[in-house]
């Protein structure tokens, strides 16, 4: 019975990783850049929801909608100001370093505006959850909501990319930016749209992250962001299904290694697994093999 409890804990943590990883993998898959500031977009989203719900309205949906709008604007602006000018730079590292810069910028900005004090986040999910086996097994409402939302996003993204013109344009840009531009696709607009979607997902992920683990500080997004990145790589970065599988797997591995091996070593185990997976399958679980032509 306690194994099942731990498994549920793992699912709960994993579903959060999965939903964050979706944003990572979306941006990487299309724009071929790692947005290391993704975790901090999440933190910004959390603060927006926190401010709205504590000052203006008790309805969490209003907060989430405003946070989505705000994060979308933030993502598109960041892309425009910090990433787009560097896209043509000689080294792809330039954008990566800038993304780390944006991450620190957002964290410190939040530190100035909101202070270092932790704030307790009111869950946006009021549903208590399921109680099974006479109360011995409890699944929190927010865990179920996270899993459902994660699956909905998965389906929506796959449909969008597979069935719409914009989605096809994204695939084309992902394949070859130069060729896509020659075919009449507006590359800049397509990448901006990718960022808009990725950042709006960050707002949703933030709402769920802080509902499950309600301590909000300027560094809230940092570590889950890195873990979700690991999850995205584990699942095969760029693959939308891979992000969900990678996230769930990572959460379960983390909790079970904490339980059965050592609560101090779980971090080492999680990142150790990343190394092993990359050695055995460099493209991740669902990653596509890319043949480099010489």
């Amino acid at each position, binding site marked *: 019975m306690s194994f099942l409890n731990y498994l549920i*804990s793992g699912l709960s943590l994993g579903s959060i990783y999965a939903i964050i990883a979706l944003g990572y993998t979306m941006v990487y898959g299309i724009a071929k850049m790692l947005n290391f500031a993704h975790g901090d977009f999440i933190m910004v989203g959390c603060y927006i929801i926190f401010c709205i719900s504590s000052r203006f309205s008790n309805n969490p949906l209003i907060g989430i909608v405003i946070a989505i709008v705000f994060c979308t604007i933030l993502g598109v602006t960041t892309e425009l100001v910090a990433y787009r000018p560097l896209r043509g730079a000689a080294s792809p590292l330039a954008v990566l370093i800038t993304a780390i810069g944006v991450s620190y910028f957002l964290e410190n900005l939040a530190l100035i505006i909101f202070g270092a004090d932790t704030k307790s986040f009111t869950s946006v999910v009021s549903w208590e959850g399921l109680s099974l086996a006479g109360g011995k097994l409890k699944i929190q409402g927010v865990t179920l909501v996270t899993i459902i939302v994660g699956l909905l996003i998965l389906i929506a993204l796959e449909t969008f990319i597979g069935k719409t013109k914009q989605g096809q344009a994204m695939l084309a840009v992902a394949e070859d930016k130069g060729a896509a531009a020659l075919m009449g696709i507006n590359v800049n607009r397509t990448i901006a749209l990718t960022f808009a979607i990725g950042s709006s997902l960050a707002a949703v992920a933030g709402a769920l992250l802080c509902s499950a683990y309600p301590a909000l500080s300027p560094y809230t997004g940092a570590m889950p962001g890195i873990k979700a990145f690991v999850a995205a790589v584990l699942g095969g970065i760029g693959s939308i299904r891979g992000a969900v599988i990678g996230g769930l797997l990572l959460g379960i591995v983390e*909790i079970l290694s904490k339980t059965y091996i050592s609560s101090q070593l779980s971090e080492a185990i999680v990142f150790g697994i990343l190394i092993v997976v990359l050695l055995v399958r460099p493209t991740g679980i669902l990653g596509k093999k890319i043949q480099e032509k010489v």
Partner: protein
Amino acid sequence: MKKFNKFVSAVLTSVMVASMVAGCADATSTGGGSAEGAGSDGAKVFKIGAIGPLTGGAAAYGNAVVNGAEIAVEEINAAGGINGYQIEYKKEDDECDAQKSVNAYNTLKDWGMQFLVGSTTSACSIAVSENTKADNMFQLTPSGSAVECVQYDNAFRVCFSDPSQGLASAQYIAEHKLATKIGIIYDSSDVYSTGVYQTFVDEAGRQGLEIVSSEAFTQDNNTDFTVQLQKAKDAGADLLFLPFYYKDASLVLTQASTMDYHPTIFGVDGLDGILTVENFDTSLAEGVMLLTPFAADATDDLTVNFVKKYQEKYGEVPNQFAADAYDAVYVIKAAIEKAGATPDQSVSDLCEALKGAMTQIEVAGLTSAKMTWDASGEPNKEPKAVVIKDGAYVSAD
């Protein structure tokens, strides 16, 4: 590398020149430091300085310290001073940064400080103690709890050290028979938490307390505590010892509640502040016990009077840091009186006199009805526990 070295030496040279110039300027403005013990109006006064983070993330601690000390200074001056001499008081900000704390110390030294109440936090206290040692300046930290804060013979402290908090917690739990089976969660990436944890485990063994689960977390892994809680629950722990800061504790309490696990929660002074977490559901902290030397609701005259003055002056309820600093000033007063010191003595002579006096005095303060010191700098006093009731601290006894 060579270029870099050249650059470094150029920078160092310019810093040195600048500091020489600055040093000269200081020397002229304070008359070469000969103005020791002379107040702004020329009369003889004792000069006490305080250092703490007045801005930044730990500002709550630093402001409490300088405010608490200020109240004590005002009281003493109103009552006629120490040995008939008034006290002059000055505070400096260190932003919880060790380097800035040393700068603050130097500023106060130039001002003519004879006794230091500070620094507020451990790392800053340790950094400053290197300088007070070199200058042989008397240092009394109200709240620097790391062992190294009082490693030199000129440094003393008012609060309990980290290890002694673990010791006192185990003794308190055993003495009051709060539990038989104890679960511990601690932060293995934090020296404060592991320090308390280790002495707690050692003492628990001697006290015959059974530790049924002890699980760690790190600052990189501090969102999910369900595993640690589930293990404690499965092991049947009826008391959970949480020797870490309130930020993580607020998550632990929330998750324990969703798991329907309601053990007695026992913490140390890092837990002080849990009620100030914005938007935190304080009903989750109901019944939480923590070891802290000061409870603002205590009914003795000293506490009532202090809390009233503090609220009038600063508009908030004082925490244990304010109480520690208030006591610190009175401890200095007691030591000066014991030693019969006067303001015209040099800083070093005053320090020598107070070092001897510290081991002989017995002070009744806010944080304990009876405090004594030995030459190691550690205080001997009774630990007090508070329990959270209806969102406020109440004495546990």
